[in-house]
């Protein structure tokens, strides 16, 4: 078992573009790609009979791949160029530093001569955060609507299954719906405090069991600026104009001035944690959560994904493309114990585990 220091590139792409995205990742020989379906929300054109903002959902594909540091900018350049991410509405991309524990990870050699480092760094935003809120099913649209109405980018929402307290309740577990919605929003770090406060307030995080709010640092990001469904009467949408200014300014910091005064009065508390993502076959979450609870863990979220390997090596379970990921957030000590325990005592093949991803996060609570 080896630990690989990598960057995880997360790509949110309009579902209509999934084929060309997979084709690109195949060209890049990505050895470890996970795909899941999500949705983003947008504000449709206002109508005279509709006095409230009513948001509209759009299907998105969320792709995650693990890339060595030396290929990170090359990947981001290729993705931004080939998938035209500068055009509003097509998608977002960001990267973050992670450790990946797996027996097999090797990226093929790529010719990176076409990399224009200065240009891509100019296009990408740095000093970004990713905010994640795990809430009950059907609640995320309310938060999304609030964010959109305050001028923030459209968050990505996907489904998950809660595996915490519920699974220790015996048959009474059926009385608590396990279905969760996970909202993720990439945002400049100077705005993140205000957004965290906004979400914590709206999700009523002061009450127990209402949700789990975290944020962590990103390395680079290019976010989708489209928040409104186009009004065809305009020559350029507001998002195209914002996107152009983002590019000219080399980031989105120029937008923060409107909200900074409110952000200063935040009463939120933070807790440094480690997020572990166990990647494996169907059923891996149940096995892992049992161990995590024994060691002091309190909750987990399971998500079903599809796995692709475009490199020379497949993982151990290449007969099926279905994968399950189990996310647990633990304090540093417990996380280390859990990793150690799983590496030393657990038969990975038997429980269908293929990799563990590790990265630091900050939990926010009211």
């Amino acid at each position: 078992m080896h630990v690989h220091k990598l960057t995880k590139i997360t790509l949110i792409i309009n579902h209509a573009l999934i084929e060309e995205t997979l084709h690109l990742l195949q060209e890049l020989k990505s050895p470890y790609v996970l795909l899941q379906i999500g949705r983003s929300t947008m504000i449709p054109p206002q109508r005279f009979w509709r006095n409230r903002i009513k948001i509209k959902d759009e299907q998105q594909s969320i792709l995650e791949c693990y890339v060595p540091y030396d290929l990170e900018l090359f990947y981001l350049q290729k993705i931004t160029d080939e998938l035209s991410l500068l055009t509003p509405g097509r998608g977002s991309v960001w990267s973050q530093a992670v450790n990946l524990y797996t027996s097999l990870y090797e990226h093929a050699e790529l010719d990176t001569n076409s990399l224009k480092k200065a240009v891509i760094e100019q296009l990408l935003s740095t000093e970004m955060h990713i905010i994640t809120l795990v809430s009950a099913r059907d609640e995320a649209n309310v938060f999304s609507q609030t964010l959109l109405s305050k001028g923030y980018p459209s968050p990505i929402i996907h489904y998950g299954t809660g595996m915490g307290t519920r699974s220790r309740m015996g048959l009474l577990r059926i009385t608590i719906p396990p279905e969760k919605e996970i909202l993720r929003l990439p945002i400049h770090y100077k705005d993140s405090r205000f957004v965290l406060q906004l979400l914590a307030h709206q999700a009523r995080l002061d009450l127990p069991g209402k949700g789990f709010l975290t944020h962590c640092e990103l390395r680079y990001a290019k976010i989708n600026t489209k928040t409104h469904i186009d009004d065809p009467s305009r020559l350029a949408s507001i998002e195209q104009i914002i996107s152009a200014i983002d590019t000219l300014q080399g980031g989105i910091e120029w937008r923060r001035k409107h909200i900074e005064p409110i952000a200063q009065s935040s009463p939120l508390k933070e807790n440094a944690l480690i997020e572990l993502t166990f990647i494996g076959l169907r059923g891996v979450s149940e096995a892992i959560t049992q161990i995590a609870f024994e060691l002091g863990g309190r909750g987990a979220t399971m998500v079903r994904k599809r796995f692709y390997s475009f490199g020379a090596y497949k993982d151990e379970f290449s007969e099926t493309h279905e994968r399950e990921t189990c996310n647990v957030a633990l304090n540093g000590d417990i996380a280390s114990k859990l990793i150690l325990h799983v590496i030393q005592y657990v038969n990975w093949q038997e429980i269908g585990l293929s990799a563990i991803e590790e990265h630091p996060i900050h939990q926010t609570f009211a």
Partner: protein
Amino acid sequence: MKAKANRIYITPRQSLALVHGYGKKKISEQVRAISFITIYLIIFQIIILNIPLSNPISIFIGLSAVVLGLAFFLEGLFLSVMPLAEMAGAELPSKMPLIITLILAFLLGILATLAEPAMVVLQEVANSIPMHQAPLLYYIFNYKSVILIMALGLGVGIAILLGSLLTLRNFSLKTFIISLLLLALTLSIIAYLDERSRPMVALAWDAGGIATGAVTVPLIIAFGLGLNRTTENDSESNGLGIVTLANLGPVNSVLLLSIIMRSFVPHPAADLESFLTNPEAFTFIETLDTMQAEVATTIDGAKEFSFFLDQLKAAITAVGPLVLALALIIMIFIRKRPNFVDEKVLGVIFTIIGMFFLNYGIQTGLTVLGRDVGSNIYSIIAKEEPATSTIHNFDINTLEYILRPNGESTPFFKISISGRVQHIPFEEENYDAQTKTYHLASTTTRLEQELNQPWSKMLLFLGFFILLGFGGVIAEPTLHALANTLSELTAGSFPKAQLIQQVALGVGIGLAIGVIRMMWDVPFLFVLLPLYIFALILTIFSESTYMAVAWDAAGVATGPITVPLVMTVGIGLNQHLPSEEQFGFLTLGATIPILILLTVSLKAKMQQKRLQQAGDAK
């Protein structure tokens, strides 16, 4: 190593609070689901038809049973049947060779149809058609019902096998649907051209919708979803579309059966006397006398049981074999223990209890309401029989004669009615020679009478069917199961409510078209062909997932609530509108949702194209 997590201790009071909250939520959801159709039928009966409720207490108990049934049934499906079927679909391809997966899918399809209790509904309609008008129908339902059920089972089995293959190998669902549909339409035309198999055409199309019922549909959907998870690329339909194939499979198999078996029966006749003049009919009846009616054992066999036991037996028969088959597949072929086995067992019990309450409630509550309204709905547009006007001082010498091709001459006379000169055949029994009066019967045709109705009455009449279909479908548990799956598949980007409303509206409009067809006695095929050709054209141009959803939704819309409700109202209507083809009502109801959803899908496809072009134009 498998560490055992500590179980949380929950006090009885806390347990009660949890169960109370859970039960309240589930039941209130179902109260909302059936409130529209219930209030609508009651208001329609009391205020518009001015008929009191026949047995309000029994209806109330029945409706309460429907609410409980839906709550238990849906919860049971989501706790056990669907996760088990999904697990089977997701694990089988990686554990077994393709051929074994396909064989198991085939067997699952056959078993699902054999366990389907809704087939009895077809029998009820078939019983209302006399032998001389549809000898093949009579023969198959009363003497060859086993062959009919086998044909349906084979149809569903082969369709699920094909559906699994196309999902696993990422073959085009569109091609499969279009091919099966073209085959079904061709077979329908062939069957329609022979008057012996003609009555079977509408039956075959209705049977397609009925063969996949309340348990089968969620099972097929979840199985397809599981299969799709294992594949390298998203199959273009996302694992959906197998329900559609499972609908079209039986349509084809029953049409084929009717074409093969029509040689065993004589030609139908309008009345029994002329039917018996055919020597073939005589031989046919003699043959029937030597055969034992099969239906007695399949339909009436449970008479000895009480009504409750009968319903419980039906529920266990519908759910038990399928769940048992799934459990066996998981234990023998997958050899993996499902998560939370206790939850799965509880889910199966919930499904059976739910099915029991649902069947009981539908029969004693919803169907009674439907029957009361259905048998009286025609009174809205029925004109009182026009009083036969009498012509006084009728002069028999004014009669004229018209020569017919056979050489006979028929007497007639001319009369001016509302400024129009009409030629009326003279009938001797209407003439009273002593008083020199002639009793003139109504001179207008039924079609003219109906067209002459005030539009408000006609709109009210058709509007009733639109809202009946709408109300029935929004309570349909199978549609909720499909909407949930779709929501899961698209992470909520395809709103559940939108799908349910579009399908419900489509079914309502389809039923209204079905009523118009019956009123004017338009041949079923003449209505079906243009609608399906239009649907085919839309299918060719639509986006794959939406297309699969559109076709699946049509199959799903005719579930345990809509089928008995619509059929009861349909049978009531049949007494007043003696259409030659009494089947086909359900099929037309299921066709319009396809057209609505496919049209919506074209819009989605155009949006996707615009987005792709936006990238190309960079």
